[in-house]
């Protein structure tokens, strides 16, 4: 089993602050995805990173895949209340996905 550890588990910040969420493993993945999940709904795909060292930007969100394809980070600049939700990372290996336990983000106005 490929384990993915996410940190922090919980994050409560004020609107306008920056934050980084980490997703770490001792295993290599062929790709890594980040999802956001709202209460009572299914996860929604934010981004997929495939190449070691890859950096992708989605408006105020920056995603990075580690050089060795074992870890990833999600950085949010100037967080807004609309960013509130559960952020999940998922690594893909041999047709399977392995999810981290998630980071619950609360952005206060």
């Amino acid at each position, binding site marked *: 089993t490929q384990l993915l550890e996410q940190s922090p588990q919980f994050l409560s910040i004020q609107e306008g602050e920056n934050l980084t969420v980490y997703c770490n493993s001792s295993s290599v993945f062929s790709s890594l995805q980040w999802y956001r999940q709202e209460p*009572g709904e*299914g996860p929604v795909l934010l981004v997929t990173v495939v190449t070691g060292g890859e950096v992708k930007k989605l408006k105020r969100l920056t995603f990075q895949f580690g050089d060795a394809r074992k870890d990833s980070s999600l950085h949010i600049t100037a967080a807004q209340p609309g960013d509130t939700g559960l952020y999940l990372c998922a690594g893909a290996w041999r*047709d399977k996905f392995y*999810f981290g336990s998630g980071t619950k983000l609360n952005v206060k106005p």
Partner: protein
Amino acid sequence: NAGVTQTPKFRILKIGQSMTLQCTQDMNHNYMYWYRQDPGMGLKLIYYSVGAGITDKGEVPNGYNVSRSTTEDFPLRLELAAPSQTSVYFCASGHKTYEQYFGPGTRLTVT
């Protein structure tokens, strides 16, 4: 554009009963997955399929069965329901292992 649909949305089962959770996708995706999500946790893979007629076990397959007779449908069968199967179940599909599109989930309680 329906995407991934799941039925039912909610269900309460008594211990020992059986049921089938339905999942249908209209995106012609080959890959389909079933997950369970316990409160405050990430998702655990139950079963997956890379195409019609092909299924394989994930991390937590015990107590469940699947079939994949068509590209569109991937039902999950629970036999002899147990309280440990109380969870939210999500179905997902994707073109390859670069993406997954999730359904809205089925909230199951076994009492």
